[in-house]
């Protein structure tokens, strides 16, 4: 096994609310190998999104170390982080976060636009990405003209467009019914088989179990394999 794509050691993130300090991430350490399908599970407020923001380079660690592809994220400036997000990470959000004024194709083009890909190639690659999620015919539709599942697939296509090594999904099925959720999930499995590293955040154990590896987070602390917590978390 080569060098892990993500290596996080003793990561801390605290929020000060009034006089109280919230340890959103408390001494988190994890290694993620290239090509893994990792599910992070945990109750609401446990720090899942905070961790995902950190992994997605939207935030810098307060203390601890985060190496992405061997590069120290903590030492990078905003512009460098933007480039990393653009090239290495594809975000899939719970509420899709598509730009409502742009068509499906234009939404998918966005990361390529910021990467400076010329218009023609951009269009071709965005189209390819859309056909991977089976929405080629809907390229000209606005998000409001698409169903929830279709919107999420557009979002996945957008995350895929730049061909990033990591796909980060924060509760991608949270806003979808169970049938559509299954479709999205199997799409993600396919993508994983194609070699994408996928990190999936959820508080649904059934969904988490589909992943190749599962960790749980509680009160900012990460536990490998879900450990003994899985039993307690049957409610999720």
């Amino acid at each position, binding site marked *: 096994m080569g060098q892990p794509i993500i290596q996080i050691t003793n990561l801390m993130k605290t929020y000060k609310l009034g006089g109280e300090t919230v340890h959103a991430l408390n001494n988190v350490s994890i290694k993620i190998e290239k090509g893994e399908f990792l599910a992070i599970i945990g109750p609401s407020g446990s720090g899942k999104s905070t961790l995902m*923001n950190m992994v997605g380079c939207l935030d810098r660690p307060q203390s601890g170390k985060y190496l992405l592809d061997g590069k120290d994220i903590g030492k990078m400036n905003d*512009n460098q982080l933007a480039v990393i997000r653009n090239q290495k990470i594809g975000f899939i959000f719970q509420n899709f*976060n598509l730009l409502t004024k742009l068509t499906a194709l234009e939404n998918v083009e966005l990361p390529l636009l910021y990467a400076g890909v010329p218009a023609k190639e951009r269009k071709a690659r965005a189209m390819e990405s859309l056909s991977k999620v089976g929405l080629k015919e809907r390229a000209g539709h606005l998000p409001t003209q698409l169903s929830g599942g279709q919107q999420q697939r557009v979002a996945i296509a957008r995350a895929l467009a*730049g061909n990033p090594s990591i796909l980060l999904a924060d509760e991608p099925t949270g806003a979808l019914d169970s049938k559509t959720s299954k479709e999205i999930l199997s799409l993600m499995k396919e993508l994983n088989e194609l070699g994408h590293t996928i990190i999936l955040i959820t508080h649904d154990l059934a969904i988490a179990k589909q992943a190749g590896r599962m960790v749980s987070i509680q009160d900012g602390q990460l536990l490998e394999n879900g450990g003994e917590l899985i039993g307690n978390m049957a409610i999720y």
Partner: protein
Amino acid sequence: MGIWQSIKMALRSIQSNKLRSALTMLGMIIGVSSVIVLVSIAQGSAQNVTSRINQLGTNLLTINTFGTDLALTEDKINELSKLNGVKAISPVVSGRVNVKKDKTASQVSVTGTNAAYSDVRDTKVKQGRFITDLDIEYRQKIAVIGSETASTLFGAENPVGQYIQIEGTSFKVVGVLASKGSSMGQGGDNTIIVPLSTGQRLVKSTTINQVYLQGKSEDQMDVVMNEVKLALAGMYPNKSDSYSVTNQKDLMDTMSSVTNTMTMMLGGIAGISLLVGGIGIMNIMLVSVSERTKEIGIRKAIGAKRRDVLLQFLIEAVVLSGVGGLIGILAGVGLGKMLSSLFSLTVSFTSSVMIGSFLFSLVVGVIFGVFPANKASKLNPIQALRYE
């Protein structure tokens, strides 16, 4: 991301909010078009005035006398005419008289002067002849009449050789002046010119109100003016309050400085509306930034750099103000043309004013766009993404 992409993106976003964009641009449109209309009217009237003054000749000096204590006699005038730079001199008495021809009566301004007047004041006859110096010597009761007076009194008839009654005395019309158009209260075409000696009788005063001097060359008018002033000071010590010497060029300079001030003032007032338009743009851009916080968060998560977001909003502001400016130029020119034909105003559109106000509108866009754009670019992506 390329600048062209950014412009396209800005245009899209402006397009997707048509009404708001149009209202925002309205400020710029009104600003730019009012700059153009006001400045071109001011410049048009300035052109009008200077061309009229130019018509009078720029090598003209005028001595005006006030009151009666300055006895400008013939010798004194002769003395002035011998000055170095003076080419010709023309003393004038003037007043208003009643003129009658058969049953038609009219009030007309009368000018008593000499033969040189024709040259000095560039007053040509279109029919008959002008006054000669002999006419003055013999106090001839002859008159040269203005074109308007001619048509009032004689209609379509040829006045030359006919007689008119001036203050009850019969005068023979020897010539008709070519039309000059009226300008700045000067003469106009409703006028009668008679020999100086006859004129003095008509207005019952020997006081010469005005003396026109024609300089030999346009470039030396300052020198001539000084000569004349010195000579007058020698002739009439301690009476410098009773006369004034003006230079046509001075008059023009004064006029152009007046019209320049007017242009600047009007331009400035209109410029203020451009600024107000700019503030309108800033206002809308600020609203737009907070409305699109989520969009900014998404764009940043996907990999937009600070510069990309800054440029996007800045270009949006500049495109708004620039398109507004362009429409404003069209509206301004259209409005100016309409005003000029409705009120027969002279308007003069100069490309420098158009380009200038367009550039100014762009600059306003940049200045008032920077603040909201900077605000947008500084948004924290995590917080922006959480924004609903």
